[in-house]
């Protein structure tokens, strides 16, 4: 850094790129955020958006009902490709969830103030993404009504789950992740639910928010224990989020299939998860701040920072792709070398090149300050990265399974209408849940925004 430049955390820099628009007080942030839920009339756009998303959720219901009637034969999967869309989508969704936990836990521990206005809906995004992810392994089991076999319970058959299997690790990792994300999110909501209870004009809203806030009254004793619990949860969620995608990558890496059996998978899956998650946070944040006029709370500083995180994790992912390929070639193992050839020249090569384009080449534009500050371009890039990360999982799952060891076992995979219906249906469910969330709960943490107001006031002194 040159001598003339002020240090990055100086008050001057903070004033130029604020995390909170000027002129806000405790009352104004409270009123602004709570009014979105309590007094603002539900707009026509909200109804239309919700209706479309809910319609797609209906498509998901139909797809699953048809699946339960006919079995997994309605999908494109067949031996040798037993995994297909279900696992591609599972890994994609669970990865998206990771950014929410990263923002709420890791950035909290690192004392990054800018996380405050995005952590609430990022956590909600995590929950909904995990809900979408959880559907896939369940319906992929073929007999989902027996999915409870995966949990250890004293059955009359006297059998227990196989704890040496990564698939059982997955059950524990994902269910723990879902549970911890839910309680972390709920604990963060308690003070805000109390605010809504006290601001609500109508009796039903007072009762519902009153029940949910459990009689929170902002006592100093309560706050003290609350802060301890929140900090501890952040500390616990941090290794948890890293472990979840590590365990998901074990599903692949523990197997001996070429292209899967590599030690680089855990870190590169985690980086990819955060990459796609930040892309999804941007995809949600940009329309949200526009629709509800939250530009003072979700400022350009936030969008800029998220774009930078995307750029950084994207480079880690690029490093992962490079070394995955390099190690395959360097190993001299003919199956691994053959897999690289298949990625570059095989029947699914266009997917591989599209993946490189979406995940590595196009995101390099984010080095440009001007493009990072172009909201429309950022939105476009976030979609590109989401698509790219989906393609990554498709390439990993499909190319390896269609080209394993013996040519007589090779195959081809192509998704059917029902595969697409299930994927699009979960996107619909995800969006519908987000629409409901912004309508009934504060999308930004009001209590933490008040803290930010107090701190900004101190900065000015």
């Amino acid at each position, binding site marked *: 850094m040159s001598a003339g430049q002020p240090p990055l955390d100086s008050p001057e820099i903070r004033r130029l790129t604020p995390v909170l628009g000027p002129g806000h007080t405790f009352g104004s942030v409270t009123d602004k955020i709570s009014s979105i839920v309590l007094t603002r009339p539900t707009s026509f756009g909200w109804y239309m958006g919700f209706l479309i998303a809910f319609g797609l959720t209906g498509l998901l219901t139909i797809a699953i009902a048809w699946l339960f009637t006919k079995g997994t034969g309605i999908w494109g999967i067949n031996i040798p490709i037993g995994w297909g869309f279900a696992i591609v989508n599972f890994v994609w969704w669970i990865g998206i969830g990771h950014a929410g936990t990263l923002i709420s836990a890791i950035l909290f521990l690192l004392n990054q103030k800018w996380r405050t206005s995005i952590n609430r809906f990022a956590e909600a995004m995590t929950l909904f993404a995990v809900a979408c992810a959880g559907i896939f392994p369940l319906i992929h089991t073929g007999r989902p009504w027996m999915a409870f076999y995966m949990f250890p319970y004293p059955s009359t058959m006297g059998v227990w789950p196989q704890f*040496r299997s990564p698939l059982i690790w997955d059950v524990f990792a994902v269910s723990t992740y879902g549970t911890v994300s839910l309680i972390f999110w709920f604990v963060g909501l308690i003070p805000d639910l109390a605010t809504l*209870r*006290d601001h609500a004009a109508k009796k039903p809203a007072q009762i519902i928010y009153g029940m949910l806030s459990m009689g929170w009254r902002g006592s100093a004793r309560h*706050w003290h224990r609350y802060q301890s619990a929140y900090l501890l949860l952040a500390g616990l969620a941090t290794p948890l989020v890293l472990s979840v995608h590590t365990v998901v990558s074990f599903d692949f890496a523990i197997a001996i299939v070429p292209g899967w059996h590599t030690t680089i998978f855990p870190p590169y899956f985690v980086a990819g998860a955060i990459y796609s998650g930040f892309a999804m946070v941007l995809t949600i944040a940009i329309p949200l701040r526009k629709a509800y006029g939250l530009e003072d709370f979700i400022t350009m500083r936030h969008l800029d920072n998220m774009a930078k995180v995307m750029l950084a994790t994207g480079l880690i992912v690029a490093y992962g792709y490079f070394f995955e390929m390099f190690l395959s070639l360097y190993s001299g193992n003919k199956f691994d070398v053959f897999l690289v050839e298949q990625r570059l020249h095989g029947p699914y090569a266009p997917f591989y090149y599209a993946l490189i384009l979406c995940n590595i080449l196009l995101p390099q534009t984010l080095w440009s300050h001007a493009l990072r500050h172009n909201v429309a371009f950022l939105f476009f890039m976030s979609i590109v990265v989401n698509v790219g990360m989906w393609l990554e999982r498709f390439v990993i799952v499909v190319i390896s399974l269609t080209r394993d060891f013996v040519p007589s076992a090779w195959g081809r995979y192509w998704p059917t209408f029902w595969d697409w219906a299930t994927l699009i249906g979960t996107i619909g469910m995800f969006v519908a849940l987000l629409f409901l969330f912004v309508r009934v709960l504060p999308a930004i943490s009001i209590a933490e925004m008040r803290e930010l107001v107090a701190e900004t006031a101190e900065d000015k002194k």
Partner: protein
Amino acid sequence: MQPRSHIYGVLAEFDTPEQLLEAVKKVHEAGYRRIDAFAPFPVEGLYEAMGLKRNNVPLITLLGGLAGGIGGFGFQYWVNTLAYPMNIGGRPLNSWPAFIPVTFELTVLGASLCAVFGMLALNRLPHPHHPVFNVHRFKHASSDRFFLCIESNDAKFHVEECARFLRALHAHHVTEVSND
């Protein structure tokens, strides 16, 4: 046992967190012990100003984590060596490295659940009805006002004296809090 007073305490309202913090310090210095402060966000130093040191949430969390971890590993050990021993490729029955992921997840799960439910239990929540809610202006405690309550079971409690004392600390809207 004393008969239950119909007055819960005296509640004073402040405009800023600094005023509240100052008032809590003064009230504590004056010897009042059964006091509580209310704020719409955690105010740094408030808990310490009330003469309190630490809380038990971290301890409960540690115990929950230990229970989850030890219980999780012990359970897998029991399943694989005693309840349902299976020879997988000649590996030892207690192939402990394979049990680590589940042990880790259960440690985190136990600790997180204990952190949250321990916090709620120590805070005596859910507790939807509380005397301070009887004060109409208390609803601002969840948006932009700061409150201090001297409770009637304090040894030094006297309604008029407390009210006078609080007014001298720049409080406004000093009110009695009724118990019912």
